[in-house]
């Protein structure tokens, strides 16, 4: 009997060991030290507690290992006057800070906020028991890759190269790839990048073009503001939101490096608006797409409707500000500045009607 127990324990331990070995593959290139993060503009979590940081100022993506943070119950989180609280923590005023992103680690429900201060110092904060704590970035386990264009690489020793910028608009991770959308100050173009992870030399670039329903005559190269990779009818797609506000789907297997790819516009969510964040929530077997907007309330779209919609909007929307295409409902959350998934519900940073900037959870009732 004793031998049997020993064997069982040994078997369980070997499972853990092989798991740990498999896990370590993603972090195989990680080293410990200061990754030299100069700004945090967009963040997303990959597997194993790896946080991907889009650092536009240094034109780099930094992956840091945050798996050591313990699992938390943040279901009741509520922080009021978030901007004042953060400004106080930095000994500065609200106009000197920018809350650039908020993400939740889906494996342990830790909430992270990224802040840029006018002095150029980037700060990462973590919520623990309704209190903000700093996550030091000067000694972490990390791996990173550059976002410099091949053109810039080729010309890196030339003078006067400091003006070229590429601002990360959104970043997501899926199946060994970091996906990025952004805008440069060079060309008004919708460059989309796919970077293998663990990072290697290889980066794919493509240009994702859309047919804007509001115009049939001229090309649109508008940059993607927010996107998610997701399954539509069993196949991996990119759902992308653009300024003003077409929602476009691209089959991932059709996005070819170096090519111009045309998407299918499935909805127009109203003019004078820009998507801010986009998440997918699964609840009781149903999947919903939530979209936070600059000038519209939080929108909820049922994936069943999105999957059933086979058309492509190619004619102008005549009625001013009207929405067409896949149906959605407006949820009673306006001025949502940040959005992410938290458990089976969602987490927002919202400017409330009384001026209070609040970090709080949405009621899961809305996504059931």
């Amino acid at each position, binding site marked *: 009997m004793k031998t049997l127990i020993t064997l069982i324990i040994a078997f369980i331990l070997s499972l853990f060991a092989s798991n740990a070995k498999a896990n370590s593959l993603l972090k195989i290139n990680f080293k410990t030290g200061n990754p030299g993060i100069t700004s945090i503009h967009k963040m997303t979590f990959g597997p194993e507690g790896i946080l991907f940081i889009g650092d536009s100022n240094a034109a780099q993506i930094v992956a840091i290992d945050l798996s050591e943070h313990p699992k938390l119950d943040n279901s009741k989180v509520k922080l009021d006057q978030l901007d004042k609280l953060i400004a106080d923590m*930095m000994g500065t005023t609200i106009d000197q800070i920018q809350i650039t992103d908020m993400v939740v680690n889906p494996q342990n429900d830790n909430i992270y906020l990224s802040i840029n201060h006018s002095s150029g110092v980037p700060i990462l904060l973590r919520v623990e028991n309704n209190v903000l704590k700093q996550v030091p970035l000067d000694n972490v386990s990390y791996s990173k890759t550059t976002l410099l264009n091949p053109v810039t690489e080729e010309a890196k020793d030339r003078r006067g190269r400091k003006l*070229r910028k590429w*601002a990360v608009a959104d970043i997501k991770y899926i199946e060994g790839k970091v996906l990025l959308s952004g805008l440069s100050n060079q*060309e008004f173009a919708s460059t989309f990048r796919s970077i293998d992870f663990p990072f290697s030399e290889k980066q794919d670039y493509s240009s994702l073009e859309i047919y804007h329903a*509001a115009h049939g005559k001229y*090309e649109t190269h508008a940059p993607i503001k927010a996107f998610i990779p997701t399954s539509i009818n069993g196949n991996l797609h990119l759902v992308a939101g653009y300024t003003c506000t077409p929602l476009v789907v691209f089959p991932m297997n059709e996005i070819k490096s170096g090519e111009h790819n045309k998407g299918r516009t499935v909805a127009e969510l109203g003019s004078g608006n820009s998507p801010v964040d986009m998440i997918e929530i699964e609840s009781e077997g149903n999947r919903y797409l939530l979209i936070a907007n600059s000038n519209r309330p939080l929108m909820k779209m049922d994936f069943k409707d999105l999957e059933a919609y086979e058309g492509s909007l190619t004619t102008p929307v005549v009625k001013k500000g009207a929405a067409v295409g896949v149906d959605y409902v407006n949820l009673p959350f306006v001025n949502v500045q940040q959005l992410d998934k938290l458990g089976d519900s969602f987490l927002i940073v919202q400017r409330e009607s009384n001026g209070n900037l609040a970090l709080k959870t949405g009621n899961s009732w809305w996504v059931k």
Partner: protein
Amino acid sequence: MYAQQSSLEFTFTKNKVLIKKDKLPEGRIVIFKGEISEDKLDSSTPILGKTIKAQEGTLFTPVVPFGWNQKYTLVYNHIIEYFKLTIPENYEPLSVTKIYPSATILPSNLLKLYIQFSKPINTTSIYNHIRFINHAGDTLSKTILPLENPLISDDKTVLTLWIEPGRQKRGLKPNQQLGPVFNKETYRLIVTKNIKDNNGVSMQKDFIHPFSIGDTDRIKPTIDDWKIDIPKTNSTSKLLIRCNESMDYGSVRDNIYIVDSSMQEIKGTWQLLEQETILSFQPIELWKNGYYQILCNPEIEDLAGNNLNRLFDKEIKNTSNNQSNHQKYSLGFTIN
């Protein structure tokens, strides 16, 4: 119990507070923003920073530098002190040093504008500090593409603004509903004095840049029409390329270079002169006799976003094979 305004010996700069060694037991330095009274300390949020023991005493380093004219409360060993950093008398205030394009008459479909500042700026809510005013004195709305991450140069002194592309490009919804941003009249670009540098110090007065709007530009720049003033051999005199129009400051800077007959790049400095109609190149080393090529990436644009390859709002004729073209454009010249 706290002792207020004691004789605690300490010094402070933007990046540290030092409590000199004395007979007090060693403790942790805690600093709060503002003048906090003793009864409110427990409910206040201390600022982020590190306390370390240094040779000269106990040192506190804030995560971000202390601000000018901001009051702080220092707590150490139950002693409360207040301090404030005043702006140095010789502090050079922020100013706008240059606007690109610098021409006084601009095309109505102008796409980009660059603001050069005298020192690094704070980009938080930057678009609230920049506006266009028309001849009648009205502020125009929806003129600049607001980006969550403003396009600021590495040294934080050059800001790129996109003039709302949805309005400047024909056929798009904002263009149809609001029309193009500019009509053929005079305008003023205003950078308000509320804009701050990275130390949190504002400009002293509004910056005002008048300009007029002329015709729409829907013609691609053609390098075959550019004229070259060939420099003399054995000199470092400037090579001048005279374009027929003002070129876009940002896209030219990054996309033009000169190679010799063995395709080796000539090192030197580019400048844009005469309202950005002349591209000037001064080599570091002497020009030698031989054949040279000026190589241009297709991304070089005029003021309306038309590049060497395509118009900004090209009409769709054939959308089936619309891949971006990465060919280079070249102009050759010989120095004798």
